[in-house]
C-alpha cells in the first residue's frame, strides 16, 4: 500500500499523531458502549464524528450569536452574518480557492452536484451532447446526470475500471469526442477507497476544452486539496464527513463559470430586485443560496476545518495510511476474506466480504462486538455489479481510529466466520 499523495511538510512524519489525545477531543468515542463493549467506530465514510471544539462552536453560536443573516440592522444579525461570511473565507482557504465568492454553501454533495447539473447542465448541455463519468461513482454523481441526459436527450458515457478498482485512463481519454460537454468524477471512490488521478483527469478534460467537476465527499478528510493546483472547474464536499455537522455542503466553482450559470433555486437572498414582471439575480455566490442557508452548520464546519488544519492533514494522512496498511494485512491474513478494491492509491476505506456470508449478517454480528461498519451497496450499485457482489462490508477509518480497533474488527470477523462454519 503506497503512501497517500499529500504534500508533506518538513518534519511532519517526525511528530506522529497522538491518537489518544485526539480521541479525548471526540466525546462520543468514549461515551458510547455497544452491548457493553467499547465502540470501534469504523463507519467514517458514511459520517464522521464531531470533536468538542466543533460542538462548542455550535453551542456558542446558538447561545450568543444567532439571528438570520444578511439585510438586518441589529446586533445579532450582524454577528451571525460576520461569522457566516468568515466561515466562507475559512472554506476558501481550506480549498485554496482564489476568491471567497467561489464558495457556495449547499446542503451536501448531492445538492452541490444537482446545483451544477441544473445551473450549468441545463443551460449548456443539449440533445446529442455527452457527459463523462466513471464506473466508480456514488449514485449522487450518476443520477443527476442521468436525469439531465433524459431531459435533454444527451448521453452519459462511463469510463470503465480494472479489477483493482482503478479507472482505465486510456479508456477514460477515449470517451472524449466533439460532443463531450462535461465531466464529473469522484476524487476518492466511496465504496472502494480508490484515489482517482484527478490532476491528470482535469488535464485531459481541459485538453478537450471540457469543464470538469470533482466529487470530494470522501477526499477532503484524508488529503490536502488545492483547487487552484488541481485547476478543476467545480469541487464539492460535505460537512458531516469532515468532522462537521450534517446539513451543510460546499460547492467550489470557478467564478467565471458560476457567473454564467443559471440559479438553481429561486427565492429570498438570491435576488437583487423583484417585481412581478422581472427579477434580477444577486451576484455569486448568493445567486445560488436561496432561502435561509445552514448558518450554524456552516460556522461549525469552519471550526471543523480549523481543527483538521491544527491537527495537520499530512499527519492525518500518515496515520490513516498506517491504519489502512495494518487493516489490509490483518484481514488479508484471514482465509476466505476477499478485499474488494485493491487500487495502488487508496484512502483509508476497506471493502471486504467474508466467504459467502452476506455482508448484512457480517455487519449485524460485528455490531455485537461494538464494531460499527457499513454494509450494503454503499449507493454504488454499478461498482458492486462490476465485482459481482450484491454488497460488501466496509470499514472506513478516520484519524481517531487506532490499531487496537483494527484488532477488534479482525477478532470479530473471525468470530462471525466461526459462527457460520
Amino acid at each position, binding site marked *: 500500500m503506497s503512501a497517500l499523495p499529500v504534500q508533506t511538510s518538513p518534519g511532519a512524519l517526525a511528530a506522529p499523531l497522538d491518537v489518544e489525545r485526539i480521541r479525548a477531543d471526540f466525546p462520543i468515542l468514549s461515551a458510547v458502549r455497544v452491548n457493553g463493549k467499547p465502540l470501534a467506530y469504523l463507519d467514517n465514510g458514511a459520517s464522521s464524528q464531531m470533536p468538542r471544539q466543533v460542538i462548542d462552536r455550535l453551542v456558542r453560536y446558538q447561545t450568543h450569536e444567532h439571528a438570520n443573516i444578511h439585510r438586518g440592522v441589529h446586533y445579532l444579525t450582524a454577528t451571525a452574518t460576520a461569522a457566516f461570511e468568515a466561515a466562507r473565507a475559512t472554506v476558501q482557504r481550506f480549498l485554496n480557492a482564489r476568491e471567497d465568492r467561489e464558495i457556495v454553501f449547499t446542503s451536501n454533495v448531492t445538492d452541490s452536484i444537482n446545483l451544477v447539473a441544473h445551473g450549468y447542465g441545463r443551460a449548456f448541455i443539449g440533445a446529442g451532447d455527452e457527459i463523462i463519468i466513471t464506473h466508480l461513482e456514488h449514485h449522487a454523481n450518476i443520477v443527476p446526470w442521468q436525469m439531465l441526459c433524459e431531459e435533454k436527450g444527451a448521453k452519459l458515457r462511463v469510463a470503465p475500471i480494472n479489477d483493482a478498482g482503478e479507472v482505465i485512463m486510456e479508456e477514460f481519454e477515449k470517451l472524449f469526442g466533439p460532443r463531450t460537454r462535461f465531466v464529473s468524477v469522484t476524487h476518492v471512490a466511496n465504496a472502494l477507497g480508490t484515489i482517482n488521478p484527478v490532476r491528470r483527469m482535469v488535464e485531459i478534460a481541459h485538453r478537450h476544452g471540457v469543464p470538469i467537476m470533482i466529487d470530494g465527499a470522501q477526499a477532503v478528510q484524508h488529503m490536502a486539496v488545492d483547487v487552484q493546483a488541481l485547476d478543476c472547474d467545480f469541487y464539492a464536499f460535505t460537512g458531516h464527513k469532515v468532522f462537521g455537522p450534517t446539513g451543510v455542503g460546499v460547492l467550489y466553482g470557478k467564478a467565471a463559470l458560476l457567473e454564467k450559470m443559471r440559479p438553481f433555486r429561486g427565492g429570498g437572498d438570491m435576488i437583487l430586485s423583484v417585481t412581478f414582471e422581472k427579477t434580477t439575480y444577486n451576484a455569486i455566490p448568493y445567486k445560488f443560496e436561496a432561502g435561509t442557508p445552514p448558518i450554524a452548520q456552516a460556522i461549525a464546519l469552519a471550526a471543523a476545518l480549523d481543527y483538521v488544519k491544527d491537527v495537520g492533514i499530512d499527519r492525518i494522512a500518515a496515520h490513516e495510511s498506517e491504519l489502512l496498511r495494518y487493516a489490509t494485512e490483518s484481514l488479508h491474513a484471514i482465509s476466505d476474506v476477499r478485499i474488494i478494491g485493491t487500487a495502488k492509491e487508496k484512502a483509508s476505506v476497506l471493502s471486504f466480504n467474508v466467504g459467502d456470508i*452476506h455482508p448484512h*449478517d457480517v455487519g*449485524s454480528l460485528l455490531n*455485537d462486538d461494538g464494531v460499527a461498519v457499513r454494509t450494503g451497496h454503499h449507493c454504488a450499485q454499478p461498482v458492486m455489479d462490476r465485482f459481482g457482489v*450484491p454488497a460488501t462490508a466496509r470499514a472506513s477509518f478516520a484519524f481517531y481510529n487506532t490499531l487496537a480497533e483494527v484488532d477488534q474488527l479482525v477478532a470479530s470477523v473471525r468470530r462471525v466466520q466461526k459462527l457460520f462454519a
Partner: protein
Amino acid sequence: MESTQLYQEIILDHNKKPRNWGKVEDCTHTSEGLNPLCGDHIWVTLKVVDDAIQSVAFEGTSCAICKASASMMTTTVKGKRLTEAEALVQEFREMATGKLDVSGGEHHLGRLTVFAGVKDLPSRVKCAILPWHTLHAAIAKEATISTEGEHDPFANA
C-alpha cells in the same frame, strides 16, 4: 439485543442448506421480492392446485436471515390451503414487527418463532419479512414487490 442470539442453529442450518431451493417448473404463481436497501433479491414460485399449495420453491441472493426465513416458509406452507398460507403471512409479519407476542396467545407459527427476536433489530425486520411478502404477492398474482414504498411492512402491517 445482540444479533448473535438471532443466529440460532436452525437459522444457520437453513441458511447453509436451504430447503425447496430453485424453481417450481410448472408453477402457476410467481413473484419477485426485492429489498433495495440491503439488496436481498428473491423469487418465489408456487404450484397451486384446488386452492392448495402443492409445491413451492425459492431462489435468489440474500442474507442468512432472509434465506432461512424463506426456506422455513416453504417447508411450512407446502400443502397448506391458500387461506391458511395468507393467515401465516399475517401472523409472521405481526410477530416480526412486534405486534404479536408469540410467548402467549393463539398463533400457528410453530418453529417460525425463532424469528421473533428480529423485532428488536429494526434494520433486519425487512430481511425476515421479504419472503412472506413475496409469497403474498405471488398468491395475489403481483409480479414484483419491494420492501420500500407501499409494501413497506411498517406502513401496512
